[in-house]
């Protein structure tokens, strides 16, 4: 029973050293330590281990800092992959403009084609003529107009 009591306080010592003890327990541990030589000895042995851990000192390679800083400087001088992409490849704005223009043109063309098909009989057109008309008079101009609109600088399309 007495041994169990010591074990529970020694457990509290471990918790205290690990930083996992509550304020209540800490207080009760402090009171116990004031009167218990066995637990005080346990605390002393634990503190000795902790002090020993700080008795290890690893030497740092004297060139390590200089090497690390040289590598960091070199890295900051190199443009990032994203910047390289933007510099040497198609700018993202043009890609976005192309995608937007293409989707708008296709949607518009489908609508115009459906409307034109309804007019084939009263206007005496055949399907090939409707398709050619949609391509020449709607698809190509709308694609070009959308591309110009998206690729233009912000202020030219009313964006501050």
């Amino acid at each position, binding site marked *: 029973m007495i041994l169990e009591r010591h074990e529970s306080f020694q*457990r509290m010592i*471990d*918790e205290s*050293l*690990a*930083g*996992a003890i509550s304020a209540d327990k800490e207080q009760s541990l402090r009171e116990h330590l004031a009167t218990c030589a066995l637990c005080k000895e346990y605390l002393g*042995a*634990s503190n*000795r*281990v*902790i*002090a*020993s*851990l*700080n*008795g*290890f*000192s*690893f*030497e*740092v*390679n004297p060139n*390590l*800092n200089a*090497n*690390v*800083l040289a*590598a*960091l*400087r070199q*890295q*900051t001088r190199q443009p990032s992959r994203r910047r390289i992409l933007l510099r040497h490849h198609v700018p993202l704005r043009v890609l976005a403009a192309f995608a937007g223009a293409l989707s708008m043109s296709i949607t518009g063309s489908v609508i115009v084609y459906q409307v034109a098909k309804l007019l084939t009989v009263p206007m005496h057109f055949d399907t090939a003529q409707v398709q050619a008309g949609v391509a020449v008079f709607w698809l190509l101009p709308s694609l070009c107009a959308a591309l110009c609109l998206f690729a233009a600088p912000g202020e030219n399309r009313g964006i501050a």
Partner: protein
Amino acid sequence: MESDTRRIALGLRHKDVAVLEILVGRYQHRLVRYLVSLLGRRDGVDDLVQETWLRILERGGSYDEHSRFEPWLFRVARNLALDAVRKQRMFSLDSDVEDGVRSLPASNKPSPYALAARTQDAERLAHSMQTLEPVYREALVLRFQEDLSLQEISMIVGAPVSTVASRIYRGLAMLRTQLEVETA
């Protein structure tokens, strides 16, 4: 603390080499110590240190200024070290202790702990530190040398706080016994 971490976060976001230079000067020694404790060897530690700083430069934008810098630094270093270890397939740091995490095999070369011991008690514990399971050694070093809280250690090692606490208790118990035996 807050203004210091804010300065660090700002510097990292702008990839400011002057800030990195200060950080390298301030944390290099601790980074080396942590990596040695994690790996149980000196070989390859310098390369990992360099890789860690380059990763810090690359991912600096993700550092949260509301938390201390050290845990984040150690976490980055740990991930790189584990990747390197996995590549080398020498041993696993993350294995469950009950399954038997393997320490480094015995070698004729003096261990980094034997070379780093500066006090008599440290000399007595050098062998035990070398043969201690890496998860215990890591927890002890982070708690008692790096002075990190259980929550911070838990964040670094990716284990629950209770697991970290239990690793500290067990590691301490092993070293306490060993020190008593060596002193007797």
